[in-house]
């Protein structure tokens, strides 16, 4: 049986993309898989009694070394902020390509803590900073220094000792451009070095908390239990900076979604599901419920989604246990069709992620297809005709073309770059100033405008002639020819409408990162947790690939 790929007009709606969950394709999981047999080492740990100083961690294989350099500094209470406008942090990090020399560390000591206003070199690959969850960190220090383990309840509720507030890569602030490293086999999946940084930062937080506790009470202090460590991740506060990324990288977005869609299609096409696979699916599914019941958020929007997800999952598990037989042909296809009929988007996408768990043979080859060489698709095929372009628009943007942008609510917002932090922001164009400096992120509106402009042009004209008098539409002409080849490259929604939920865009990206426990703090930023439950570096060589569902929390 041949199953069709799911329709981009459905899958690329923001409500659907904002319902995605982590899966075997997620970058933090594929990072661990790739680096599991690398040699991990703590090369330097030079902190004072309060935990301030420098530390270096590395992964090494053959002649390749990646080193995380950590700078932990004293931070006054009043200076601690997760907002992007902050200028000081509890700790700052960079991932260095190779073994850093003393001179490198000295150079970086002056630059890394400054973050956006510092300068890195082509020898550095990623940059980040993080703040303590002071409440949790202090509690852990206090407990350990008294010789007891901390309150698991508190740790479960928060999930981390530190949270990062930005992770930068790909040439920002002088970091190495991607072209310098893109041919390295070990980083052919997206964001692999960003994942490495976050993973090693997590280890630093454990080492630092142990070190401070030990110095506080050398005779009595104990180390944080490795099982407790394993169940702590790294938090992350994420704002709108992430949202335009998925609009600005259409072929990359396509490759992420396409991998997911191909995985689902292939799983649905399995005629006879082996019992070991159906069992593993059921085990992961049941264990994963803990990740939902321990999902704390004050966001009404998210609480509603979690409630709906739990409700649908209970119905689904009941269906699987009592009414479904995996021995029937194309069992996963049956399951998928049942979900489409009986579940909300949040649950459908949750189960889609779960379906991937038993199938390394399907997933592993797809992981290597999730990067993109975007330069290849930049040039516009200007010898194509107006008619051809119109056909692409009618085919690929059929729902977008029906939006009436003369209505105020469909043209309510605009995206801009803030002057003070050079970060993307969203504002109401009828209230705020600056819409004349709008970023080219109103794709739906501009596609509609393109369609209208094409309609008064001769069908047989070529695009080069069309562009002479329509250069303001050049950016969307380029996109239209990209979507022709990459069906999942475009969000099929209005990104400037009154009802837009920007956190859906963040959620999409973060689900591919492998984040858990999305905790929206408004419609424009959220907190997440990464690597919670992941093996510690010392445990990597022999770890359980389904660690995501083995969390104690």
């Amino acid at each position: 049986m041949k199953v069709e790929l799911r329709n981009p007009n459905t899958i690329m709606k923001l409500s659907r993309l904002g319902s995605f969950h982590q899966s075997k394709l997620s970058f933090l999981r594929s990072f661990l898989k790739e680096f599991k047999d690398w040699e991990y080492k703590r090369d330097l740990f030079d902190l004072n009694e309060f935990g301030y100083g420098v530390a270096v961690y590395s992964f090494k294989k053959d002649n390749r070394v990646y080193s995380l350099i950590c700078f932990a500094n004293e931070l006054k209470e009043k200076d601690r902020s997760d907002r992007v406008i902050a200028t000081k942090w509890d700790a700052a990090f960079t991932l260095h390509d190779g073994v850093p020399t003393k001179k490198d560390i000295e150079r970086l000591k002056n630059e890394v803590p400054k973050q956006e206003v510092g300068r890195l070199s082509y020898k550095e690959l990623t940059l980040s900073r993080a703040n303590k969850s002071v409440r949790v960190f202090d509690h852990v220090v206090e407990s350990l220094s008294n010789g007891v383990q901390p309150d698991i309840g508190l740790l479960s509720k928060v999930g981390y000792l530190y949270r990062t507030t930005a992770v930068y890569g790909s040439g920002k602030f002088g970091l190495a451009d991607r072209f310098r490293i893109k041919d390295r086999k070990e980083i052919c999946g997206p964001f692999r070095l960003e994942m490495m940084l976050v993973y090693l930062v997590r280890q630093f937080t454990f080492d630092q908390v142990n070190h401070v506790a030990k110095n506080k009470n050398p005779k009595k202090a104990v180390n944080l239990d490795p099982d407790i460590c394993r169940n702590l991740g790294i938090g992350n506060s994420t704002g709108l900076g992430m949202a335009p990324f998925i609009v600005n990288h259409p072929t990359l977005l396509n490759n992420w979604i396409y991998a997911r869609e191909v995985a689902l299609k292939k799983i649905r096409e399995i005629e006879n599901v082996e019992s070991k696979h159906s069992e593993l699916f059921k085990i992961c599914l049941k264990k994963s419920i803990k990740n939902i019941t321990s999902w704390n958020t004050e966001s009404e929007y998210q609480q509603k989604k979690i409630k709906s997800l739990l409700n649908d999952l209970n119905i689904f598990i009941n269906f699987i246990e009592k009414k479904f037989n995996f021995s029937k042909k194309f069992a996963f296809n049956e399951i998928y069709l049942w979900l489409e009929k009986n579940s909300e988007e949040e649950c459908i996408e949750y189960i889609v992620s779960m379906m991937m768990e038993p199938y390394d043979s399907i997933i592993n080859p797809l992981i290597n297809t999730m990067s993109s060489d975007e330069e290849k698709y930049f040039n516009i095929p200007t010898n194509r005709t107006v008619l051809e372009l119109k056909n692409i628009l009618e085919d690929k943007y059929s729902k977008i073309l029906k939006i009436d942008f003369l209505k105020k609510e469909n043209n309510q917002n605009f995206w801009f770059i803030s002057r003070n932090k050079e970060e993307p922001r969203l504002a109401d164009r009828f209230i705020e100033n600056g819409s004349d400096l709008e970023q080219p992120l109103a794709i739906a509106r501009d596609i509609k405008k393109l369609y209208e402009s094409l309609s008064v042009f001769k069908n047989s004209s070529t695009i080069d002639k069309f562009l002479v008098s329509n250069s303001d539409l050049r950016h969307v002409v380029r996109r239209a020819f990209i979507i022709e080849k990459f069906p999942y490259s475009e969000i099929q929604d209005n990104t400037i409408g009154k009802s837009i939920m920007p956190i859906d865009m963040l959620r999409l990206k973060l689900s591919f990162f492998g984040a858990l426990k999305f905790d929206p703090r408004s419609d424009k930023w959220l907190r997440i947790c990464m690597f919670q439950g992941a093996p510690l570096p010392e445990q990597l060589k022999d770890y359980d690939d389904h660690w995501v569902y083995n969390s104690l929390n």
Partner: protein
Amino acid sequence: MKSLSEIETVSKRSSRAAGFSWGIAEEVGKNIRILEQFGLGGIKNLNYYFRIIKNKNFEKLHLIKDENKISKKEFCPIIAGLSFLDQVRSLEVLKEIKFEKIAYPLLFLPFISRASEVIGKKFELKIDNRVFLLNFNNSIYSNSLNEGVVEIGNSVLIKFKENEDSFEEKEWKELYKLSENTFVEESDSLKQAGAGAGLTDND
């Protein structure tokens, strides 16, 4: 040192701020990245050009012909370059294209380099006495590097280079003969067991 990613982003944004559409600004961002990657003064020339266009207009050349003459003002290198890139497939029939007076012609160059990749032909670009050989946007060979800002190209010529060998057949044969010394003569039995053995050619 600035990364190419920073160079592209700042060039794109500044082009938009200078009045170009976002689509054109994206093209300029890519172009300045190319110039800097090849060691030519992209940022410097773009910066000077944007200083000038605050107070001075340039002629927009939208339709490229074999000879392109200005009416009053110098050609804008960005619009002329973009038109060339967009129209290059239909211009291929021409052997040479001449331009009179292009302002800041180094900003024109990367469009031609990219056009070389689009049609799979090398170009020779002459800007007055400077010569550039543009190889499918993979490399640029020139007698004029590190010149800083070039304010005007009074006479600009693009030659389409046919995909021809740069050597004579005699030279090829000589080298080929030498390469044959790496081959081993096959025995009759090996020849009979080779691929397709036992089949007739028309089965």
